[in-house]
């Protein structure tokens, strides 16, 4: 960046001004992001139950117990935590591919068209997650709009938010005995494999519906940068529309696709608002996610140590994904 030659006085002035200008932001982020993270790290090694202050020395120290309870000790804590990991993994595997493909598809159909459709597809992503969850609760209610539409096609819709059966379970039927008899990390093989519940599928639908618009806009920006000459050259060579898409446009969109997929992977591990409003982890814990479980463990069960430990494991998962993304992005450039 070019910088002019400045006098000594201005420089001295700048040093003080620099700190003055960053001070408010630094103080707030330090006090309400950095400091709390350190405090929570400390609490994750204690058995604080919410009474008084956790920093007085009267709170029992737990060592790494809160972490071993999540991974190695057989018990309810591990069962719930592993269930939340299972649920969130299914959520990630469904949401990320569907929203990426849908966003790309929407971008391709609205590209070079005027504003109305763009606005329509993008609007859901700027609305409040809580407000939109209320609308989807109504749509997926037992006698609600979704089941009314399904009835038109002769399908009897499920009771969306009270049906804990997994998708795989619904398709395959009852599990073979050997899958139920053996378990890993406190859950039977069948628990791991039976798929996201019907209730989780309703939440997945909502999230795909709200986020596709955001990613569509990213794809649109990238499409604008595809050189017109490339497309024209392909067309002159007699390529069909499908061939143009497959061999000319998609390769040009690779960096954006990569970004959309990785942002999706990072974002989907953070699902919280929709779970809180729509299901609170029910039915039968099939919509419990690590983010919601850490909240529930701390603020409903008053086990702040375990709640904080769950937060840090989740933090680690997300940080690893973020580092991976930044690293791969840098290599690509």
């Amino acid at each position, binding site marked *: 960046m070019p910088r002019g030659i*400045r006098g000594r006085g*201005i420089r001295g*002035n700048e040093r003080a001004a620099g700190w003055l200008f960053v001070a408010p932001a630094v103080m707030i982020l330090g006090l309400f992001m950095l400091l709390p993270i350190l405090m929570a790290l400390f609490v994750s090694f204690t058995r604080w139950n919410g009474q008084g202050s956790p920093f007085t020395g009267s709170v029992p120290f737990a060592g790494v117990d809160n972490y071993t309870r999540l991974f190695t000790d057989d018990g309810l804590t591990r069962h719930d935590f592993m269930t939340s990991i299972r649920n969130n993994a299914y959520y990630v595997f469904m949401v990320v591919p569907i929203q990426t493909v849908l966003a790309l598809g929407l971008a391709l159909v609205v590209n070079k068209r005027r504003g109305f459709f763009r606005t329509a597809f993008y609007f859901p992503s700027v609305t409040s*997650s809580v*407000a939109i969850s209320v609308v989807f609760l109504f749509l997926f209610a037992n006698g609600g709009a979704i089941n009314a539409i399904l009835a038109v096609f002769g399908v009897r819709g499920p009771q969306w938010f009270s049906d804990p059966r997994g998708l795989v379970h619904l398709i395959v039927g009852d599990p073979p005995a050997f899958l139920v008899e053996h378990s890993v990390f406190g859950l039977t093989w069948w628990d791991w494999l039976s798929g996201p519940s019907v209730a989780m599928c309703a939440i997945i639908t909502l999230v795909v519906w709200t986020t596709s618009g955001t990613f569509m806009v990213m794809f649109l920006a990238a499409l604008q940068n595809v050189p017109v000459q490339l497309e024209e050259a392909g067309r002159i060579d007699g390529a069909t529309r499908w061939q143009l898409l497959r061999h000319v446009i998609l390769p040009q969109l690779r*960096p954006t696709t990569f970004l959309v997929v990785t942002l999706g992977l990072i974002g989907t591990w953070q699902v919280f608002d929709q779970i809180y409003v729509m299901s609170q982890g029910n039915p039968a814990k099939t919509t419990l996610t690590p983010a919601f479980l850490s909240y529930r463990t701390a603020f409903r069960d008053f086990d702040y140590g375990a709640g904080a430990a769950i937060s840090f494991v989740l933090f680690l998962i997300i940080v690893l994904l973020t580092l991976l*993304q930044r690293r791969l992005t840098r290599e690509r450039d």
Partner: protein
Amino acid sequence: MIRTLASRFLGYAILIFFALVFLYPFVIQIANSFKTEANAAANPLSPIPSPFTDDSLTRIFEGTGFPTWLGNSVLVTVVVTVGRVLFGSMAGYALSRLQFRGRKALFAGLIAAMAVPPVVLLIPKFLVLNQLGLYNSYAGLIVPLLADATGVFVMKQFFDSVPVSVEEAARIDGAGVLRTFWSVVLPMAKPALITLTILMFTGSWNEFPHTLVAVQDPSLFTLPRGLADLVSGSLGSGTQYPLKLGAALLATIPVAIIFVVFQRYFVRDASAGADKG
């Protein structure tokens, strides 16, 4: 010729199908806000309320905490937006333009802060608010939201892209850093400031998880928190969907208006995100 007509028709059919998928839920929301509870349960898909009633709106304003939540939301949104835009542009300017010790380290810290997922901060934020005695107060609701790492980053990127010559001229004329910032830099940064304001407005208007760990008293609820409370059963008997949908609708209107008026800024913002990677 026939093929292009057919494919054009197919293109529009797909567009209209998806437009329905994305917009009809809002139509259902609006229509059912003005239905009776029995009608909403019997005909959830119908876009026409019969009979039409604004009974749920009356009950929202007279039978729930909605007016209080609305007031709190306006207060929080205004203060937080002003704070984030001001502090964000100050810090962004300093990181982009001013030479001071620790600047590189601060920028690295900022990049790290942007990677911290908000949901893992729920328990941490509660701990600090509890320790500082700010839990369940307006200060606890507002102050932690006043600065935002992404806002600082957006402004730094903006200042990096603007040539320094204008400010240099002002500085040579003897204006101090503060004067230059206030009367030369900020007016010049107007487009970025508008984008940032919109981004921060929608962000703070829709903010939910923070309110969950910052306040407990219904008189301190914002709209998203109050809505979540309505859904989790504070209404008493029945599903009361017209009332819930109406309250959600009212909470969506301000963002919808901003979205329609400033649409091009939203799009610019999202594509700025695409360049970031």
